[in-house]
């Protein structure tokens, strides 16, 4: 039986690492890299919600993360094609 605290502290570790990577990580001047780095923090939050047994919140977080990623990619690619300084 794996201890639930292992998942909990690993989730916290992933969330903090992912947010640091999003803020100051390597190559974040490219907005696509920055968007991918938020996924790391998002997986950490998923682990936390799993520890707390929040099933509906976990499903909704996964669904909204996918939709937000699609929206951000659409915005990034449109802005880059229009020649904005992103």
């Amino acid at each position, binding site marked *: 039986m794996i201890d639930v605290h292992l998942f909990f502290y690993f989730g916290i570790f992933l969330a903090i690492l992912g947010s640091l990577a999003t*803020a100051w990580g390597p190559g974040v001047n490219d907005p696509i890299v920055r968007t991918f780095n*938020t996924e790391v923090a998002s997986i950490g939050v998923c682990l936390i919600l799993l520890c707390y047994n929040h099933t*509906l919140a976990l499903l909704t977080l996964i669904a909204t993360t996918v939709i937000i990623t699609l*929206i951000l990619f659409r915005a990034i690619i449109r802005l880059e094609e229009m020649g904005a300084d992103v």
Partner: protein
Amino acid sequence: MIFTPPYVPSEFIFMYMPAIYAGLIVGFIGSMAIAMKREELHILILTDLIGLAMIFVVSAVGTDLAEALILPGLVVELAETMAISEILISREMRKIDADPRRNLSKASSLFPQPFALNMEIMTTAPNFIALVLIGYGIFLTGFTGGAVAGGGIVLYALSKKARGMPVLVIDGIAGVSGISWCLWIIGFLLFFVAPNLWLISLFLAACGLLLKVASKVGLIGLLMREDIDKE
């Protein structure tokens, strides 16, 4: 004195302080990064981090209340990201209109190259998978069911080759959204006026939310289809 409700498991009480501190750290990192960046698009991406910090702090409560508070937070974050990205795109279009000397390609889309999905599975399977997803979403009801049913609509919309929506259909989707909002409000009111009818009011609210979320996610799929299906 710290008041803890008796139905909170003791495990969650020990997990409370680490979760709160982690949420504060993540929120602090996100705010510092927002303060140091200048480009709006990067700030929009970094707002996601603030949303994650919000989820941390709310989920540390550990009861059903936390779950009930996380759902609207996520939905509001989604709507906010959508609105701000549209505002950024339209502002950039205004800049181009003001200064037309900048030579730009007319077509701008999600996939710069023509992106034709010529897979056999995209023409045969979607009818069945979309039907299963929509049926399962209706069975689930509520926000999660709406997301599942909307995923079915997105799959169907992306895989079908027909382009352009008649105006009547878009008006119809807006009408469905309004009706679902009315259902939700009636259910909420009935819950307080006649508490013994709690089951019907619960189902009114759940079905209203299902219709609303499914139609909104389906609209996103229709928007994306305009980008994907260009030859």
